[in-house]
């Protein structure tokens, strides 16, 4: 099978009793998004299984993007760097260990994907070719967020003795790792 194509995950039938108010909310949202309630419920459960249950272990909170950006803009860059180094050397390891039981390059890259998918901290794109794996993170949170990400990612990989090549602007961070 082509590396671009991946087998669909197996689905299984299962029935649950749920609060009526929750069901009404899901059906209303599914209708608004023009998808089936089954699809939406499955995606909600995947989000719980892939992210929420591990995020609560690291005491995750969810401020609005307006508040998040405002906090970043008002912070001193040196403090941002200090925080990023501390967070990057502990949080990703705790998250991926809880999720998959191992800390390696693939699990840390998966952590970066997960933060895009479920926490909206940036948009994620990656190109993998025979020479390198290049990951681009694009965001609207300003220069301090790029500074945070650069130092968070550096500290995250430092634990494995890996030093990705990093570049940044006020709205993006690009990291490159040699092909493995």
């Amino acid at each position, binding site marked *: 099978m*082509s*590396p*671009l*194509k*991946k087998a669909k995950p197996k689905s299984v039938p299962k029935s649950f009793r749920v609060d009526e108010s929750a069901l009404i909310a899901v059906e209303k*949202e*599914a209708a*608004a*998004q*023009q*998808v089936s309630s089954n*699809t*939406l419920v499955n*995606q*909600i459960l*995947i*989000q719980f299984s892939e992210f929420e249950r591990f995020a609560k272990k690291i005491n995750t909170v969810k401020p609005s993007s307006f508040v998040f950006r405002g906090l970043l803009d008002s912070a001193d860059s040196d403090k941002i760097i200090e925080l990023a180094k501390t967070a990057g050397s502990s949080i990703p390891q705790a998250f991926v260990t809880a999720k998959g039981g191992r800390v390696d390059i693939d699990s840390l890259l998966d952590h970066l*994907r997960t933060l*895009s*998918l*479920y926490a*909206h901290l940036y*948009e*994620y*794109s*990656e*190109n*993998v*070719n*025979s*020479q390198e794996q290049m990951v*681009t993170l*694009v965001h609207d949170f300003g220069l301090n967020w790029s500074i945070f990400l650069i130092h968070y990612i550096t500290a995250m990989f430092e634990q494995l003795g890996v030093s990705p090549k990093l570049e940044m602007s006020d709205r993006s961070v690009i990291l490159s790792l*040699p*092909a*493995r």
Partner: protein
Amino acid sequence: MKQKSEGFQPVGNAILSLRTLEPSTCSRLEHMLSKVPGIVEVNLNHAADVVQVKFDPTKVTGEGIRTIMKKLGNATSH
């Protein structure tokens, strides 16, 4: 640097936000993106408000897909 075999096929993945798009655009997005040359798979995640795209990076880039989505969003809002 380790070199992969000659048959290695480049792979691209993107996770892009749906938050700037109208629901009516989102419902057409899967169909519209899947017609773009180089895009291999499109999965809308309504719970997470993102679209996950698998693509051939020799034909299209993550930035290119982002630009297409931006244009779709602009076209809908006008």
